[in-house]
């Protein structure tokens, strides 16, 4: 187990390093880093300072090491627009995005797994077929359009929910969370649902396929031969077996949720890091773009690592295989 974790951490470090190299190349090698990292109205003194700080008069590999060094210190330049440190700017928006992504993930799990299992248990009836056709619609829904239509229906026509923004939040460890303040919940409903809808389809299909496969297994027949109730067989024997692939996929999807939050946050004016990225792209605020990229890469790699470790604790076979090696 320990060797496995160590090996995975090594792989993750490699990914981060490779992505850092790619970002470095696209910023430093292709473009002129001064143009990219300094505001267009910077004067000569600021330019000289930046050249010295980034080591642009040195060979490329030294520059790369400087970049890595700055990266390690969390220094990726200042935002042109806000004038503050790009990294802390993004980290300040991270809780809003994480909260949105995690709520959406939980929604997707608790809607998708029961739907998929239901469809799997009734695969030859209209229930199963309806659920599975519905999941294709969920896959096909253009996410941003679905969000806009929700606004049209629930905010404009029915006026049940606010059309955007984060609303009131509660504080925990100095960070703001909508979940902690019931007055903020209405603001969370539509963005979370919009972000979840694609994953609901995904989870439904995974749960469906897993359930159908599990039902054909001998252990289900043996469980029935023991006189177990259908509830116990489905709720323990089948569920535990399909949970492993679903948890793995969902964990990996948390990353894509954070990425896709870019769209949802734009539609609902949700003040997360995705909205910040889009605003920065529109305003050519490049240090923020670079910082976003590196933070997301780090986040992703961390999530992937976590999922792998979680997976190995969930599936006893993987755990053992690794202990043997």
């Amino acid at each position, binding site marked *: 187990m320990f060797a496995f974790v160590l090996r995975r951490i090594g792989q993750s470090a490699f990914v981060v390093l490779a992505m850092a190299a790619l970002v470095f190349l696209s910023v430093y090698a292709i473009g002129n880093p001064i143009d990219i990292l300094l505001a267009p109205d910077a004067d000569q003194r600021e330019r000289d300072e930046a050249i010295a700080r980034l080591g642009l008069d040195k060979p490329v590999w030294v520059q790369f090491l400087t970049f890595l060094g700055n990266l390690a210190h969390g220094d990726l330049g200042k935002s042109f627009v806000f004038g503050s440190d790009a990294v802390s700017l993004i980290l300040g928006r991270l809780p809003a995005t994480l909260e949105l992504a995690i709520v959406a993930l939980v929604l997707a799990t608790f809607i998708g797994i029961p739907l998929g299992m239901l469809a799997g248990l009734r695969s030859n009836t209209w229930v199963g077929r309806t659920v599975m056709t519905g999941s294709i619609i969920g896959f096909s829904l253009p996410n941003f359009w679905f969000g806009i239509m929700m606004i049209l229906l629930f905010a404009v026509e029915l006026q049940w929910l606010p059309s955007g923004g984060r609303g009131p939040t509660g504080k925990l460890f100095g960070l703001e969370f909508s979940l902690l303040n019931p007055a903020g919940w209405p603001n969370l409903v539509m963005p979370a649902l919009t972000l979840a809808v694609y994953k609901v389809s995904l989870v439904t299909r995974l749960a469906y396929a897993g359930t159908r496969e599990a039902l054909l297994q001998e252990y289900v027949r043996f469980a029935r031969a023991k006189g177990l109730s259908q509830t116990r067989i489905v709720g323990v024997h089948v569920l535990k077996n399909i949970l492993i692939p679903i948890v793995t996929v969902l964990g990996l999807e948390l990353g894509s949720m954070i990425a896709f939050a870019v769209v949802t946050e734009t539609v609902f004016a949700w003040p997360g890091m995705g909205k910040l990225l889009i605003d920065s792209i529109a305003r050519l605020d490049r240090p923020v773009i670079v910082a976003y990229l590196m933070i997301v890469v780090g986040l*992703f790699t961390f999530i992937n690592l976590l999922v792998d470790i979680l997976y190995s604790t969930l599936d006893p076979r993987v755990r053992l295989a690794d202990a043997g090696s």
Partner: protein
Amino acid sequence: MSDVAIEAIPAVETPLRRFIADYCANRLALAALVVVLVLALLSLLAPWIAPQNPYDLTQISIFDNMLKPGERSMDGNLFVLGTDEQGRDMLSAMLYGLKMSLFVGAASTAMGLAVGVSLGVTAAYFGGRIDAAIMRLVDLQLSFPAILIALILLAVLGKGVDKVILALTLVQWAYYARTVRGNALVERRREYIEAAQCLALPRSRIIFRHLLPNCMAPLIVIATVQVAHAISLEATLSFLGVGVPITEPSLGLLISNGYKYILSGKYWVSLFPGLLLLFTILTINLVGDHLRDLLNPRLKT
């Protein structure tokens, strides 16, 4: 399950005819295929069947702006689906937008296929370090979501139809490369490839006549689904403001335009293009889903 022996029904048809018959057996999938073809035809015929050319400024009048669906302009033209803020007929704009969406989706998939298949076959055929290098790149790319990669590429490259296609190509190639390599590795160990090598057939012939045809089935399935995915992604990117330019709008950009008017209840500018977009993606996905069921040997009983 049971040990009941049921004899296979002897196959008398050719594989292709059998496949077509199998496909048509599912009415939903058949309907979806017909709709996809009709949509493609409509988009190609847009210049001839659209009530107006929405990008010819002499044909549109700012006085007709924001007409509701079914309203007529002052000189009597009927706007079935209403007009946008510049007085453009929505139906015409949607037909042209569909053309752009389908074009971007198909073009990027075709290019992604070309790149991905070439690299995948190269990796599988040569193995060793070349294989390792290409597959590392594939793994790296696939560990990040497509939207993020495309977004960053376009943030660096800037707007433009060609740039969107390029970004979507780069997003897609890894899927094809991985699929082709996986299949080709299995096929490469088969006897017929060894036989072909013993005959000293040229490499290119082995690759194109023997290896590739055996990778076709999964490629067709993935490519079909990827067209839908590319169309959806393009719409999303255009909505975010990094996609196609305002002068050549796709369905996604039309929706994005309508987004501004949503809060004032002017639903038609984003509702109708969105429905068309959903319909397009949905029908392509339905076709792909059914193809997957048919071409996946694991599911065949």
